[in-house]
């Protein structure tokens, strides 16, 4: 129960709010912003609802002449069965500006359904010496709704000419000293005073050479507002408004704008009757060419040196860097988005440098603009998208993206930096369900850059310029030394060989002698009939002779070597056989019993040995 009550009350409040906002009441005020001293004008308050009570504003510097007088306007309409009604209540105050200076209109408020609605306070410039007639009612009306053809103003000139102070063109520049790329707002305005304008012709807008220009306002209707221009009240109209971005440095001239204006000028002058206005054509069309003055803008260059990552931006900017996905399968497309937001020359920004890993396939940068033109250049965002396709798995680090712009307010370069980004590339899904075994796509090792080879770090000896050995004295000394050494070695070898030859010859020569001595000894033993000693001596004599004669070492004294050596020396087979049989006999006798020695045999063997040795002696 309580709950339903609560919900009902909430519903009621919501309904009330809906009803309230469905017909939002507002109180608007309308008054000229510039008047001349002593001028009588109206202040009109309008409210679109039934009003319980109107609290008039406090006035300072103004004298209230009449009012507030209220008027009520109500209308009903039925369109296609839908009926709507509107109600407008207006309160008019007629005041006079007392003296030159600032006049203030305080806050006024109305009470609608017990609710107070108030409207803003106004400041009004009161200009001394204005020529506005107090009787000219139309000028006090809402000047915003007036068209130039309907504009009425008392014509002071009666001689048919328009002076430069009556009508002129002016190009207002928001700044005349800027840095390159800093936005300037240029406003082309027409100022008139006391003349009627019938029309324009031949409008030539300035060509902004050296600037990137963009039209901000291209009004279809020329709306005049009152403006205080150097203490004079003029009716001014904005013809066109541009935003300019200087593209070069130095002082740049802006060519004058031109326009031919047609004025309605009353002719005749003198005595005027009230009929003249109706019956005689007392107005004359006067054409006058209006120019703006040539204006000059001093453009300074941006301070140098600019940071390496300066992208041409001038203004105020923020940067947001994001990856489309933090984790991405290999061979699928991803992107890094750099969003630059703020105000300034967004249209002229260059893409920041993003170091996408070299292993990724990279594509062209996609640029998306989302900004609107305004007094501060462009404001909004500019988005750079860097598409890529990773080709291998792993975790890749993308270094922080840095971007510099020139901050006009701070007067220095500001570097924006994102943190380093990390992207994880997972294994790509197999393409399709086919049974084909897909290998890794092979690719050549790509050169990322080229450079000269690194310096030599060899700890090297330095030498005077001509350090090549060949052809120097030392070179020839070395060659001679080598030749001398070779010669020396040769001599040494020759001498050694000769010495060895001597030893052999001596042994050869000695062989017979030694053999003879041994044979003599053996014959002695034979005479004494000492068989064992005889055979020993005979064996020694035979072997010693052969050893000395043929230069065979005692250790090599085998039967086969002896036979081979003898045959090599071309000894007759008979002698060799005799020699071998003698050796056999000696060896057999030496190791047999003493009783076996026969004197006759020993004698025969002795004779045979002498014979063999003498035979060898003649041949070896």
């Amino acid at each position, binding site marked *: 129960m309580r709950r339903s009550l609560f919900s009902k009350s909430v519903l009621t409040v919501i309904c009330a709010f809906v009803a309230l906002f469905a017909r939002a009441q507002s109180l608007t005020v309308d008054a000229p912003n510039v008047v001349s001293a002593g001028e009588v004008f109206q202040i009109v308050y309008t409210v679109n609802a039934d009003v319980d009570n109107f609290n008039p504003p406090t006035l300072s510097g103004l004298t209230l002449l009449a009012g507030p007088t209220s008027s009520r306007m109500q209308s009903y309409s039925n369109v296609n069965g839908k009926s709507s009604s509107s109600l407008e209540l207006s309160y008019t105050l007629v005041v006079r500006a007392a003296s030159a200076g600032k006049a203030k209109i305080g806050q006024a408020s109305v009470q609608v359904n017990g609710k107070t609605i108030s409207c803003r306070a106004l400041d009004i410039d009161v200009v001394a010496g204005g020529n506005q007639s107090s009787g000219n009612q139309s000028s006090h009306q809402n000047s915003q709704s007036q068209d130039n053809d309907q504009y009425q103003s008392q014509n002071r000139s009666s001689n048919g000419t328009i002076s430069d102070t009556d009508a002129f063109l002016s190009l207002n520049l928001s700044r005349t000293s800027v840095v390159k790329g800093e936005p300037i707002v240029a406003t082309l305005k027409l100022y008139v005073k006391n003349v009627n304008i019938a029309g324009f012709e031949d409008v030539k807008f300035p060509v902004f050479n050296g600037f990137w220009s963009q039209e901000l306002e291209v009004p279809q209707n020329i709306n005049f507002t009152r403006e205080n221009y150097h203490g004079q009240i003029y009716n001014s109209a904005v013809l066109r408004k541009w935003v300019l971005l200087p593209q070069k440095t130095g002082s740049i001239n802006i060519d004058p704008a031109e326009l031919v204006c047609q004025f309605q000028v009353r002719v005749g002058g003198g005595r005027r009757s009230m009929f003249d206005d109706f019956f005689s054509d007392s107005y004359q069309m006067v054409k006058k060419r209006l120019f703006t003055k040539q204006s000059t803008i001093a453009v300074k260059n941006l301070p140098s040196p600019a940071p390496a990552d300066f992208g041409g931006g001038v203004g105020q900017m923020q940067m947001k860097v994001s990856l489309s996905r933090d984790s991405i399968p290999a061979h699928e497309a991803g992107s890094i988005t750099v969003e630059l937001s703020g105000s300034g020359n967004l249209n002229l920004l260059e893409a920041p440098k993003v170091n996408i890993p070299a292993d990724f396939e990279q594509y062209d940068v996609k640029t998306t603009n989302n900004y609107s033109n305004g007094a501060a250049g462009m404001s909004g965002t500019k988005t750079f998208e860097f598409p890529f396709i990773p080709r291998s798995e792993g975790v890749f680090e993308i270094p922080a993206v840095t971007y510099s712009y020139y901050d006009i307010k701070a007067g220095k370069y500001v570097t924006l930096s994102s943190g380093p980004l990390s992207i994880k590339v997972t294994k790509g899904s197999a393409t399709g369900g086919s049974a084909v075994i897909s290998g890794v796509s092979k690719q050549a090792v790509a050169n990322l850059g*080229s*450079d*000269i*080879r*690194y*310096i*030599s*770090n*060899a*700890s*090297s*000896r*330095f*030498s*005077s*310029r*001509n*350090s*090549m*050995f*060949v*052809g120097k004295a*030392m*070179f020839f*000394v*070395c*060659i001679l*030394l*080598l*030749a001398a*050494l*070779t010669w*020396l*070695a*040769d001599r*040494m*070898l*020759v001498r*050694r*060989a000769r010495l*060895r030859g001597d030893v052999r010859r001596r042994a050869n020569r000695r062989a017979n002698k030694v053999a003879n001595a041994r044979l003599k000894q053996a014959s002695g033993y034979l005479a004494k009939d000492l068989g064992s000693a005889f055979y020993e001596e005979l064996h020694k004599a035979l072997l010693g002779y052969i050893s000395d004669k043929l230069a065979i070492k005692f250790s090599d004294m085998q039967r086969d070597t002896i036979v081979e050596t003898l045959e090599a020396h071309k000894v007759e087979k008979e002698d060799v056989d005799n020699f071998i049989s003698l050796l056999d006999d000696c060896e057999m006798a030496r190791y047999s019993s003493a009783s076996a020695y026969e004197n006759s045999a020993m004698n025969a063997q002795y004779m045979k040995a002498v014979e063999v040795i003498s035979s060898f002696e003649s041949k070896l």
Partner: protein
Amino acid sequence: MKYLMSKYSFKVLAGAALAMIVLVIFPYGASASSETDMLWRKGNDAYSMGDYSVALENYLSIEKLDKVNEHLYFNIGNTYYKLGNTGKAILYYERCLKLNPANQDASVNLEIARMGATDKIETIKGVIFVEWIRSIRNAFSSNQWCLGGFVLLLVTALLFLVYRHFPVLGIRKLSFVLSCIVLVFAIIAFIFSASLKAVANDTSYSIVTASHSNVKSAPNATGNNLFILHTGTKVRTIESAGEWSRIELADGRQGWITSVDIEQI
């Protein structure tokens, strides 16, 4: 026994000879002082830090002491290249290659540096056989050829001794033939070594180091301009007259150039 003795003494002799040659060749002219070593290390450190102008200063002060080698020239070339002075870089790479034509790094870097040179001059190719011989010669430095020549000469001597004293006739014949062949190779090695030395001492080639220079028809400023040479171009000087040098390009064109615009390799 005596035989063994003789073989042993032979080895000792050969070893002594080789050791002597090595000892004589290598320390020859090597006079590394602590000053040059310090400058060298400072230069290398500065280069690795990317401070090329400081590196260059150190390297050049070694060169000013008249102490050079191929590595120094190579590093100076690299430093000039990094400083953007293509002409000087080419000059020093050429100087490095003049000392050791077998320096691969210098050839590679010279190729890279030449890409930055403006002038493209068609060189007249020699006979293929001569080019081939030259490429063999350039495979080693002069001192390497010289050392190789001595080693071959030593082998010749050993083979000669074998021929003279080995008892087996067949081996003696073989070693004689071999010793003759090896001697021919030793002589070729010495010829290559001498030829490389001649190349290194050849002062006739220069590199244009001025950014551009007018080549005139006569050794005075009023002569007709024949052509313009840019930095990095190799020219051969034929003669000099005062401040002018008569030069010839690789394609055979000749003219006079102011001597300050070129620098001898």
